[in-house]
């Protein structure tokens, strides 16, 4: 490596040159200097952070994750709506048509649906529908067995909340769930060890879907 390039990397590590816009190679060179200089941090005395700091971090992470998932599902919902308007028969309507005969009583009241899709790839994991007239929410599972002996667990994040609430393990067949939902709510599925989440929060949430009103 040239001397100038190496000294530029050292200055970016120190912060006397900006890091923004560096190439992958330049980043690796800067990181090598960062690790070299990190020895200067070894003698720094530990100080206990205040109690409640981990809870604050967890809450921030849950909020960030929820916001990201909402943005993604909004994009996804727009895409589904676009497909529906072109095809003349929306996927949401189709989903309801499939489940309506058994699970959605005739009603004029607004109905809501969430198609809970994989964060990677967009394949559906379950469909949640809620009839405000009857107050009945129904889950239609699409996923079957979870990998490696694990289980799927369902979650509900009410609009404005940042902490998910468990709805129990994903059932094998369509069934009613005890939840009231509306616009802005988010549903998700996580992969959990046998028996469900050991912490009361999702361990590995990979499917998300936002509630939208069915017209």
């Amino acid at each position, binding site marked *: 490596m040239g001397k100038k390039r190496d000294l530029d990397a050292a200055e970016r590590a120190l*912060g006397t040159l900006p890091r923004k816009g560096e190439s992958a190679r330049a980043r690796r060179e800067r990181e090598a200097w960062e690790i070299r200089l990190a020895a200067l941090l070894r*003698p720094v*005395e530990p100080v206990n952070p205040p109690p409640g700091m981990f809870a604050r971090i967890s809450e921030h992470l849950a909020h*960030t994750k929820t916001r990201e998932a909402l943005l993604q599902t909004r994009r996804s919902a727009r895409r589904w709506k676009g497909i529906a308007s072109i095809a003349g028969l929306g996927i949401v309507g189709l989903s309801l048509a499939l489940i309506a005969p058994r699970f959605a009583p005739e009603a004029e009241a607004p109905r809501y649906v969430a198609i809970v899709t994989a964060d990677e790839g967009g394949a559906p994991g379950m469909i949640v529908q809620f009839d405000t007239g009857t107050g009945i929410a129904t889950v239609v599972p699409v996923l079957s067995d979870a990998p490696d002996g694990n289980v799927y667990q369902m979650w509900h994040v009410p609009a404005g909340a940042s902490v998910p609430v468990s709805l129990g393990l994903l059932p094998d067949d369509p069934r009613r769930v005890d939840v009231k939902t509306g616009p802005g709510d988010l549903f998700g599925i996580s992969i959990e060890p046998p028996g469900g989440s050991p912490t009361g929060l999702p361990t590995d949430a990979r499917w998300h879907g936002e509630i939208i009103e069915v017209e």
Partner: protein
Amino acid sequence: MNADTEIDDLLRATAKGDRAAFRLLYDRVSPKLFGIALKICRDRPTAEDVLQEVFTDVWRKARNFDPKKGEAGAWLAVITRNRSVDALRRKGRGIIGATTGSEADLAAVADPSLSGDGGVDYLTLIDCLNRLDERQRNLILRAYYRGDTREELSSAFDAPVNTIKTWLRRGLAALKTCLDE
């Protein structure tokens, strides 16, 4: 299992979304990282904000950790140092007063007898820093611990920015030569 292997393992589990491992990692390293944030920010609320940013980074980017490039503890310390410097710059020096402290704490860092046991890497680095002339050493330490820009160093050392650049780069080049010996 030594401490760094344990942190490596916890980081790897965190990268897979293991919240229990993330909690253990927090318990294990947060006092050290909070100490670093406090040393650089010198303001408790800012250091708490930094710690939150650091663990948010760790949860989301743990998979970027590559043990071939360095120890897990060093990787976490670097994230904390960089986040602390970013916070100082974002908030403005006037509020926190990071440029107004004495030079004594910098001198103390460069004196192993005053700084406790920092390990072999630390002693080697300090030995090499102590071979630099005092001005070069203080420039490097000040940029590192306080996040001073070239312009701020220019003001603190009462020298033109180009001169600061020259001193700084001569110091870094000499440091590298010494570390490679």
